[in-house]
Each structure stands twice: as C-alpha cells, then as structure tokens.
C-alpha cells in the first residue's frame, strides 16, 4: 500500500493532508518555543514593551538562584513521590475493576474518573476546605485516629505540604491511569488465564506468571505518561498552596509563572530562560522515552 500512495500524483494530497497539522504545530509550538528561547537572552522587565539583549546573563543568574534550584528539587521530589504512588494505586484499581467477577465495574470506573474531568482550580479550592486544620474532614478523621496533632496544617507545614498536594494530584489523575491500565489488561486474552486455572495456578501465581510479563511494555508507557503529567502540574498547586509554604511546593512551572507575572518586578527574559531550560529538559525526556520504546519494541 505504501508504494501506491507515495506515487507522484498523490504527493500533492500528502502535502495537503499534512498542512493543517504542520501549520498549527508550527504556530502554537515551534514558533513560541523559538521566541521563548530568543526572549531568554533579553533583560526584559515586564512593565517594558521590549527587552535589551544581555547574552546568557539570565542563565548564569538562574543557576545561582536558590529559588530556581529549589524549584528543580521540588519538581523532582514531587515526581519521585507522586509517580510511583499513582502508578501502583491505579494498577491496583485496574486489576480489581478488570476482574470479570467484579460487580458494577463501569459504575465504579465512572466515579473514579470524576476528579479527572473537574477543573484543577475548583479542586484546589475544595481541597483547601477538605484539608482545613481547624474543622476539615481530613483533620477530624486523622485527629480522631490519633495520627496527627490538633491543628496540624497538612497543606501549611513545610514537611507535609508537598506530599499532601501530591496526594491530591494523585487523587485527581488516578482515573486517567486507571483507564490506561484497564485498556492494557483488556488486551490480554482470557484463554491464558483459563489455561493457568486448569494448571491449578492461584490468583497471585497467575498474576506473576501471565499478567506481569505481558503488562511490562504497557507499564513502561504508563509510567512515562505519568512522569510527563507530574512534570506539568500547575493549576492545582497554584490554587492549593501557590508554591508555599516557604517554597516547599514551588515547582518549575510555578517558578516561571511567578517570575513572569507576580513578582514585584515581573521579569520576562528571566522567566523565558527558565522555560527554555524546562522545555529542553522535556525534549530530552521525550527523546529518551521514544528510544526506550523502540528498544522495547524490538
């Protein structure tokens, strides 16, 4: 088929079919990325209409900026905690909700998916109330169980704010991973399980022997998708903690936002430099991922 389409008379169609995607991709991804990289070389106060060229000054300053370095750390800490938990919790739910004996599967699935489709800003607002230290339900329950002291603010303490917001993020996005897992599990043919049953394997044995190896390639992809999501967490943190307390939840995205908009003197060039570093990092992750995938495929 490939040869038939690639014949010359179809070349025009190839171009026409590629055009919409290419134009939109160029206008909204490539060109802005290039512009951001250009801005990163400017000393540009947000109140000014244009910046002044300053070379790599912004980059030099970034790597001496404690808050930027903290935000790198915070971003990775968030990822290292949130990704495995979301991965495992969603896998557990996926296995439960894929089991043929489970009742009302699609009902449960819909409920678990509900947070995914809710605006992040609203979730932030609701969660501030849910985690309120003086009368929020979470504190009432945890204090009742004797797990935390009275008045301990989970979102307001330096040591717990990041993990609490990570848990809220996991809660919001778990439903998405769940769909990935269910989709993956559905691709394993039932006959394999039946064969295992005949052989007298227990549930756990058949999981280790059949499900786990077959799921491995899917797991890699789900993991990478989750990592990507975790690096982009923004609106939830903005409404939940706005980067605080004391920069303990200031991720790179928030750092960029604060630098470009809310600082006393908003600095567009400096924020662009941070964005460029961030974008480059994403590209590397993406390339590593596709290399990974290729190797996995072969």
């Amino acid at each position, binding site marked *: *088929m*490939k040869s*038939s*389409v*690639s014949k010359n008379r*179809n070349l025009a*169609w190839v171009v026409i*079919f*590629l055009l919409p*995607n290419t134009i*939109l*991709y160029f*206008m*909204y*991804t490539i060109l802005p*990325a290039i512009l*951001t990289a250009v801005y990163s070389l400017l000393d540009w106060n947000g109140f000014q209409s244009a910046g002044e060229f300053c070379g790599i000054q912004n980059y030099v300053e970034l790597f001496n900026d404690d808050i930027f370095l903290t935000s790198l750390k915070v971003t990775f800490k968030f990822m290292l905690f949130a990704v495995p938990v979301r991965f495992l919790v969603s896998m557990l739910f996926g296995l*439960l909700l894929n089991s043929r004996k489970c*009742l*009302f599967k*699609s009902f*449960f699935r*819909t*409920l678990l*998916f*509900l*947070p*995914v*489709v*809710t*605006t*992040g800003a*609203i*979730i932030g*607002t*609701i*969660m501030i*109330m*849910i985690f309120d230290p003086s*009368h*929020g*339900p979470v504190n*009432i329950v945890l204090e009742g169980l004797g797990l935390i002291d009275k008045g301990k603010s989970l979102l307001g303490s330096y040591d717990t704010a990041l993990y609490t917001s990570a848990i809220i993020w996991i809660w919001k996005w778990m439903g998405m991973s769940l*769909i990935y897992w269910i*989709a993956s599990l*559905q*691709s394993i043919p039932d006959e394999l399980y039946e064969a295992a049953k005949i052989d007298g394997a227990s549930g756990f044995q058949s999981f280790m022997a059949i499900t786990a190896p077959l799921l491995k390639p*899917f797991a890699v992809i789900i993991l990478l998708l989750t990592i*990507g999501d975790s690096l982009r967490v*923004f*609106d939830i943190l903005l409404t939940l903690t706005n980067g605080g307390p004391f920069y303990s939840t200031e991720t790179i995205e928030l750092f*960029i936002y604060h630098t*470009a908009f809310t600082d006393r003197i908003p600095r567009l060039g400096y924020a662009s430099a941070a*964005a460029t570093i961030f*974008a480059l990092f*994403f*590209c590397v992750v*993406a*390339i590593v*991922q596709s290399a990974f995938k290729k190797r996995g495929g072969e």
Partner: protein
Amino acid sequence: MKKMDFKTRCQGWAFKIRRTPVRYCVLALALLLVTLIWIYPFFWMVSASMKTTTELFSKGLDLIPDQFSLDSYYDAWIKGGFSDYFMNSVVTTIGAIAVVLLRCSSCGYILSQASFKGKGLYITILVATFFIPHGTTIIPVSQISTSLGLMGTRIGVILALAGGGQVMAVMLYKSFFDKTPRSLYEAGVIDGASFPRIFFSIMLPMSGPVTATVTILTFMNSWNNLLVPLVFMMGNPEIKTLPVGMMAFSGAYATDWAGMAAASTITLIPVIVCYICLQKYFISGVAGAVKE
C-alpha cells in the same frame, strides 16, 4: 420502552449478584465504600452550593444544608450569565474538537500510509515536543495571535486550544491506520475513489474508537482550560467560557462560595454525561493506542 429496559436491567443485576460468590460481593461493597470516600469532595461541592458561608465553615463533615434550595443555581444560570457562558463553552469546545479531529486524523493517516522524505524527522520533532507545556509559551502564543488578528476572537481561542503538538492524538490515529488492512485501500482505488474520498468515506469512519478517545481528551482539555480563554477573551466578553465566567464568583473582597459551587456543578454535568456516553469507545481507543 425505557421503563421495561430499566426493569429487565435490574433483574439482570439481581441475577448477577445472586450468582456472584460472597467474597466478590464483599469486594464490591468495599469498593463502593472507597469510591464514595473518593468522591466525597463532589458531595461537599454540591452541598456547598446550598449552604451559607457561615454554615460552610461551621459544619465540618456534615453535608446536609440547613435548607434545600436551588437559588444559587438559578442565580448562576440566569443572573450570573452562565447560560451564555455555557453556550460559548459548547461552541468553543466543539470547534476545538472538530479542528483537532481533522488535523490529527489527516496527519496520522499520512504518517501511517504514505512514505515521504523526512517522515522520520517529522515524527521525531513531534515526539520531542510532546511534553512542552502550554503555560510557558502563553506570551509568545498571544503575541503571534495578536499579529494575526486572532486575539479576542472565537476562532483565535479555538485555534489556540486545538493548536500545539497534539502528539498523542496524531499518534493514536497513526497507530490505528497502521493496522487497517491493505485490501481496503485497494478496493477504494479499484472503485475509482480519489485519495481524499478514500480517507473521508472509508478510513475515517472506521476509526471510531480513536475518534472517541481524541474527542474525550480534547473535550476535557478545552472545557476546563482557563489560561487560553482568559488571555484570548480579554476585551471580548461575548465569547467568555464557563471557567472564565467562574472567576467572577471569586471577587476582590469575598468569595461567593455557594455561587461558585453551583457553577462548578453546572460545569461538571456535561463532562460526566459526555464521558458516560463515550466510555466504551474511549477504553477500546486507549487500548489500541497503548498497545502500540
């Protein structure tokens, strides 16, 4: 007709429950408990829409408001202009979905079926920018849109929502078309159908599950997107969408909690309906994609 359906369905459930071993019933009960806790915040939201501010803070876990009233819904829908915002959101979202479907399906089709010079590079560049977030590029995007005269227009919002990489959608289509049998295309050629005709009348209609998946993903993104409409709708209130309209409840001095909760609930309902309708296709679409 519908009633009968429901009755037989209930009988079906009852039958199913009776046939299920006890430990699975216990499991279902446990799951029910977990999921109810899971969506507690939503119950809280709905109940908040009927509470006064003082009630909201004094009640703790209690979800039952002192009195049931739908006033805040009425206020949000009629006085708050949410009926207009709602229509705007619908038009913007449908527009974005249409653009995404068109650009991604055609591109995915070509990337799958045609071979041309630079195809590998094209895919590599697409994938490399997969993770670049919207937020960091909002200023250049708004500048580009301004110079094209798209700022403050509905088409500008739609294009910005549908713009960018959309790598996931392109790849979903590509992997779907990779699996379509060769004979289909050949049959089309023998019938004398042109290239676009084969695509639109044979290939695209087949890609139902992928189309459903892309629709849901785009729907979620557009319906909830705050940043893009916020920036693009400055100076043109006629095209405000729901999330932008919601900001009005969080005033400079005080937050209208009941109004905000009511508006959030209103915003959420179409999303849930859309998800429930497309759920089946969605999962099989994602299954196809993950497999690749």
